[in-house]
Structure formats: C-alpha cells, structure tokens
C-alpha cells in the first residue's frame, strides 16, 4: 500500500505543480480551461434542466418513460466511458514507458496495475464525469432536490457506475491482450470495433425509442400498469438500468426500491473489483510480457500495406519537400493500427448516420420545427467534423514526436510544415463534411438555396474546426507522447473540443432567426426568400475566418518555439 501511495503522491504533486503554476502563460491556459470547461458545464446543466422540464411538463411523457430515456442516455455514457478506458488503458498499462520503469523496481506488478488503473480512469473519464455531474445537477434542480442528494448520487451512484465501466474495460483488455499475442493486434482491434458497434446496434434494436413510446402510449394514461412487462429481460442486468431505476424510485418517493437498485450497483462494483484484482494479480504481468513480445515480433519488412505510388523513392508531382512530408505522413498514419482503425470507425459512424437520416421524416410542415430539424442535423454534422478534427488533426503536430529534430534542423521553412499539415487535414475534413452536408440538405428539402447554405456553412465550419484543432494542437503539443489517442484525449484537446462546441453554438444563434423566417416564407407563403439567409451566411463566414486566422497565427507562432 505504501508504494501505491508513494507513486500516487508523486503524480498528484506533478498535477498540482502544473495546476498551481502562476506563470503568465500557464495562468492563461488554466484560466481558459476553467472558463471553457465551466461554460460547457453550465450549458449542460441548463440544457439538462430545460429538457427535463420540457419532457415532463410540456410533452407529458411521464416519469417512467422519462427515466427509460435516461437509461438509454446512460447506456451510451457507459459505453463511452468503457471504450475510452479500454483505449487509453492499452496505452497506459501496456505501452507506457513508466510501466517498464516501475516493473524494473522492487514493486509488485499488482501495485503497478492499481496505480496505472487509477491514473487511467481519471485521465480518460474526468471530462465525462464533469458532464455527468452537470447533467445530474440539472436533473436534480428540476426536482428541487436537497444538496445531499447531489453529493450522495455523485459519490455513491455516478462514480461507481463509471468505475464499473472502467473495470469491465480493464478486465476485457487483459483477456484481449492475451488473445492478441496469438492472433495479432490488428485482427483483435478490428474484432473489438465490430463487437462494440454490434452491442450498440443490438441495444437500440431491442430498446427502440420509437417502439417504446408507441407501446407505452397504448396504455396511456395508465402507464404504470405496463411497467412490469415493458423491459426486455436482459436490460435488467445492465448498470444503466440500475442507475435509472434508482433515480426513478427516488423521485417516486420509494426509497426501498431505490436502495435495492443501489445495492445491486454497489455489489456489482465490489464483485468486479475482486475479479479485476484477482485478474491483475494473476494475469497482468503475463499479459504485459505478451504485449511486449507482440510488439517486438511485429514487422520484418516495411509493412503489410503496400501502396506503390506512395513508396519513397518514386518521383512525385509536388516539390521534393512536400512530397517527402506527404509520403512520411501517409506511412506513419497507415502503419499505426490505432490511427487507421479509428478512421475506419469514423467512416462507419458516418455511414450509420447517413442511413439513419434516410429513415427519418425531415420534411416538416411547421416552420419552427423545420428550422429546429435543419439546425439539429447541421449541429450533428458539425459535431462529427469536430470529432474527426479532434481525433486526427489535433495530434498532428504532437505526432512529429521525438523525431521532429530532423525536420527542424533541415532546410524546410517551418511554416511550410504547418501549412502542409493544414491542407492535408483540411482536404480530408472538407470532403467528409461536404458529403454530409449534401446528403442532409437533400433529405431535408430539395431546395437549392438550403443546399447552398448548408454547403457554404459546412465549408466554413470545416475550415474553422480544422484550423482550430491544428493551432491548438501546436499550442498544446506533447512531443513526448507517442499515442495519438492520449494526445486527442488530453486536457488541451478537451478544451479545444469544447471551444469548438461553443463556436457551433454561436453559428446556431446566428442562423436560427433568419432560417425560421426563411422557412415561414417557404412553407406558409410558398415563396423562397434567400435574402433572409445572405447576411447570416456572411456572418458565419466572418466568424469562421476569424477563428481560422486566430488559430493559424497561434499555431504558426507556437510551432516555431524552441524544440
């Protein structure tokens, strides 16, 4: 126990040292973080309270149905925490140099596991914990709950719920690493992606929200009569169900049933802790050795992927320097399984989104609803662009890594390196974004003005978000971090993502009123009035260009820093 406390103390001291760094630059960084994280938390709190109020008071969906929706939300939250922990755990438990160092000391591997698991859990789940807390505060404040409800729910319900997700991730990981030593990491990762996609698909096929509403509404207003028969049996074994049930019975003043669900949740946590502890004691060291051996056995040649036209040593049409940078980026990207697998996953999600869009009725007869649906789809497109940019553009400068010396000492203008990164990312992001925009706009209304607005605004969003992520990625560059996923889930990355959300929020505010007027003219009077949209699109363009120039000047200034 003493060794665990010692290592955790060192880590906590390092964290405090950077948090309490009062130099101007650090102070600016910390204050910006506080502002943006705080702003988003307040936004989520308000949204949570308003949605709870709307669904219960205006839509009259009833407490039961509301908590079933909450359960679905918690399921997505659970999977996100679980997947996030699994991805980051692989880096922290198996690839980190710190583990190699600690394994060389007279510290048991079990203790190393405990330290790295705690480190990993808070590293990969702290932003989600903040969002969860904001949601809880919004939810509780609607029901006017007392202060101790929040404290209790945070520490005894939300945190254990997230821990269950994290522990399941680490248990699975230990098993998977062992399997990987036999079948290879690439096939294993591809298998994991498929399993997670299937899990989400199956859950929502069984717990179909539309079906749920229809079935419950059949019995309206005697909704409670249907409660016992509604849930598919396997749902009752999921932690999200226990949390939503705990909340439902708490709000229904039935503390006995609330406590029963809470006990199941805590017993599960206890059981999983024992299993994880046993597995760590028995299997962590062998699986760590297996992972090291898998890494060292890799390769034997330049790689399994052979794309001849991208091979070094072939003449290209670009300048020699740009050509060299492009080929290097191509191979470094496609030889790193976590990079191309994530890209594949993003493409799959995009396909799922486009297919789902096809089954929705988005041509609405009420102008305001049509405005809302247009903006929701636009926001979702923006969210996807922000996610892709965060995952692939933000780490671009950090991924220069320790080998950046060879570029910095070569006769290449450093601005050229930056612009090369920008254009390579922007072309990819713009391509994805415009596909999304065309498909969404066409499905909504086959209207050239709306399609034009969607295309232009999406191009502006792609420009702003790509430049924001690249600039912030240069500002928060972590050249020592080899894992792109850790770079994309760092504090700087979360901050950039949240800033991107604020930017998207501003665009929605710019568009909402003029778009509503446009739909009023179109739907109620049957006449197109594109003049209503000219000025807002110009305003979106100006805002995006400001973001582009601001981010790019920060990026260009910081990439020149001492290396």
């Amino acid at each position: 126990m003493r060794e665990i406390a010692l290592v955790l103390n060192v880590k906590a001291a390092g964290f405090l040292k950077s948090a309490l760094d009062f130099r101007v630059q650090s102070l600016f960084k910390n204050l910006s973080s506080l502002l943006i994280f705080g702003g988003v938390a307040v936004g989520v709190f308000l949204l949570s309270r308003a949605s709870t109020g709307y669904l219960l008071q205006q839509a009259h969906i009833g407490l039961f149905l509301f908590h079933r929706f909450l359960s679905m939300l918690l399921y997505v939250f659970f999977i996100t925490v679980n997947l996030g922990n699994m991805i980051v755990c692989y880096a922290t438990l198996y690839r980190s140099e710190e583990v190699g160092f600690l394994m060389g000391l007279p510290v048991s591997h079990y203790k190393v596991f405990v330290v790295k698991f705690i480190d990993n859990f808070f590293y990969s789940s702290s932003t989600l914990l903040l969002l969860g807390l904001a949601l809880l505060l919004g939810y509780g404040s609607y029901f006017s709950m007392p202060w101790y409800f929040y404290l209790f729910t945070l520490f005894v319900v939300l945190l254990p719920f997230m821990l269950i997700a994290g522990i399941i991730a680490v248990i699975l990981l230990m098993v998977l690493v062992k399997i990987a030593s036999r079948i290879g990491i690439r096939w294993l990762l591809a298998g994991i992606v498929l399993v997670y996609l299937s899990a989400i698909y199956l859950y929502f096929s069984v717990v179909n929200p539309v079906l749920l509403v229809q079935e419950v509404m059949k019995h309206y207003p005697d909704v409670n009569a249907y409660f016992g028969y509604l849930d598919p049996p396997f749902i009752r074994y999921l932690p999200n169900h226990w949390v939503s049930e705990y909340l439902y019975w708490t709000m229904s003043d039935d503390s006995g049933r609330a406590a029963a669900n809470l006990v199941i949740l805590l017993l599960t946590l206890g059981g999983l802790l024992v299993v994880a502890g046993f597995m760590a004691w028995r299997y962590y060291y062998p699986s760590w050795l297996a992972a090291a051996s898998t890494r060292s056995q890799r390769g034997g040649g330049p790689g399994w992927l052979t794309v001849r036209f991208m091979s070094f040593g072939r003449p290209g049409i670009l300048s020699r320097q740009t050509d060299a940078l492009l080929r290097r980026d191509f191979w470094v990207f496609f030889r790193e399984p976590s990079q191309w697998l994530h890209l594949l996953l993003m493409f799959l999600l995009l396909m799922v989104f486009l297919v789902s869009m096809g089954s929705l009725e988005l041509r609405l007869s009420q102008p305001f609803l049509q405005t809302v649906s247009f903006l929701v789809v636009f926001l979702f497109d923006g969210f996807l662009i922000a996610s892709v940019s965060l995952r692939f553009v933000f780490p671009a400068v950090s991924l220069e890594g320790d080998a950046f010396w060879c570029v910095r000492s070569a006769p290449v203008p450093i601005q050229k390196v930056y612009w090369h990164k920008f254009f390579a990312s922007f072309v990819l992001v713009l391509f994805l974004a415009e596909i999304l925009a065309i498909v969404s706009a066409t499905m909504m209304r086959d209207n050239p003005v709306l399609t034009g607005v969607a295309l232009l605004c999406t191009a502006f969003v792609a420009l702003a978000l790509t430049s924001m992520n690249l600039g912030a990625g240069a500002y928060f560059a972590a050249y020592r971090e080899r894992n792109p996923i850790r770079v994309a889930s760092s504090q700087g990355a979360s901050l950039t993502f949240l800033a991107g959300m604020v930017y998207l929020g501003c665009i929605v505010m710019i568009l909402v009123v003029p778009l509503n007027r446009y739909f009023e003219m179109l739907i109620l009077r049957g006449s197109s009035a594109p003049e209503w949209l000219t000025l807002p699109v110009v305003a979106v363009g100006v805002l995006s260009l400001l973001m582009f120039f601001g981010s790019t000047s920060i990026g260009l200034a910081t990439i020149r820093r001492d290396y």
Partner: protein
Amino acid sequence: MIELRNVTKRFGTFKAVDNVSLQIGQGQFFGFLGPNGAGKTTTIKMLTGLYAPSEGVCLVNGHDIHRDPLPAKRSIGYVPDQPFLYEKLSGREFLSFIGGLFEMSVEQIRDRIDECIEVFEIGDFIDRRAEEYSQGMRQRIVLAAALMHDPKVLVIDEPLVGLDPRSSRLVKDRLKERTTNGLTIFMSTHLLEIVEELCDRIAIIKQGRIIYEETQNAMRRFNGQLEAMFLELTK
C-alpha cells in the same frame, strides 16, 4: 565555417549558455567538452536552429542560422544526442525522407543510400522498421542521414553512445576521413580519449561559460594528460 558571437541562452532567469564565442575553420575537427548540464547540448541546439539564442549570433557557412536559416541549414548535418527516428519507417525510408527535405533528386537519394549502406554497414537492417532497431543501429542510420546531402559542417552530440567497438571504430574512421576532405566537425562528447584521438581543437564549457579553449592545432601537446586537465578545470 562556424562562428558563435557572444551567444547567450536563458530559460526564464536561468542562463544555460553565457556569452559564448567560438570560431571554427573549414576542415577542423572541434571537440566541445564539459560536465553534465554545462550547456553543450543547448549550444548545439542553437547552432542547428532548434533553439533561438536569447542574445548573440550563430553563423554557419557565413549565414545566420536564425535570420537566414535555409542556406545555413543546407550546409549542416546534425546528429542529436538521442537518435530518435520515425518508428514506423524503415531506415531506407527515413534516409529517403531526409533526402527529400534536402531537395535531393530521387536518383541522388538512391545513390547516396547505396553509398551509406556500404560506408556504415547498414545493409542488414535498412529495410526493417525503426521500431525494431537497437540503439547502435539507430545511431548509424542517424549518422548516415546527417551525411546524406554531403554537408559542409557536421554537428554531432555524443556520436558514439551505444555503438559497439567495431561500429565505433567505423564511425571514427569515417569522420576523420571526412575532415581531411574539408568537412568541419563540431562534436560534443564526454569521451576524452576520443577527443584526444580525433580532435584538432577543443573548448571546455562549464556553467554556460567557456573556461578553456585551444585556438591552434595543439592537441598533441596534451600527450594523454587531457583527462587530468579536464578534471582540474571542471572541479
């Protein structure tokens, strides 16, 4: 060929390098010595454009590396203290990449790689990915990369760390051979016997300041006593 004029580097209030001035002519093999943390690597990083000096000027082949970096960098080959490579690229791909950055043609790169394979004996592993390399293999690839574009100046930070005796001999011979052909070498090292064997001139840096400098080709004067002098000066 290399000139440092009153170069100072500050990190906050700490002066890592304090008013250093040096002049190294063409074809000289210059040894830069000093205890740990004396400012050797910081000086080298300023000389190669990785750090901007707080004061003073670093000239390479007559060009200020910070005001006029591109021509200065074209003249330099650099070997860092840690031979970091792109783990996912093979040695051959890394050398091709470096050749591209120095704007060499595809044919020139191919020829130079063939030459490097022979000179540095890297043929056995050049097509394997860097993630499989040992320290010595990496060191030889980085040395080959530094000489790919036939530089006028070679700046080396601890060149023989991690090399086995055979590779070490190979590298020493190649470096000495290059200086006779006009290459200027600026080498930082802790290995005094190598300095005695290879260098024409030396300077010793301590706490950021040059405390000793041989201005003429006078290494023979030490006659095996360099270690004693170094220990005396840096105590």
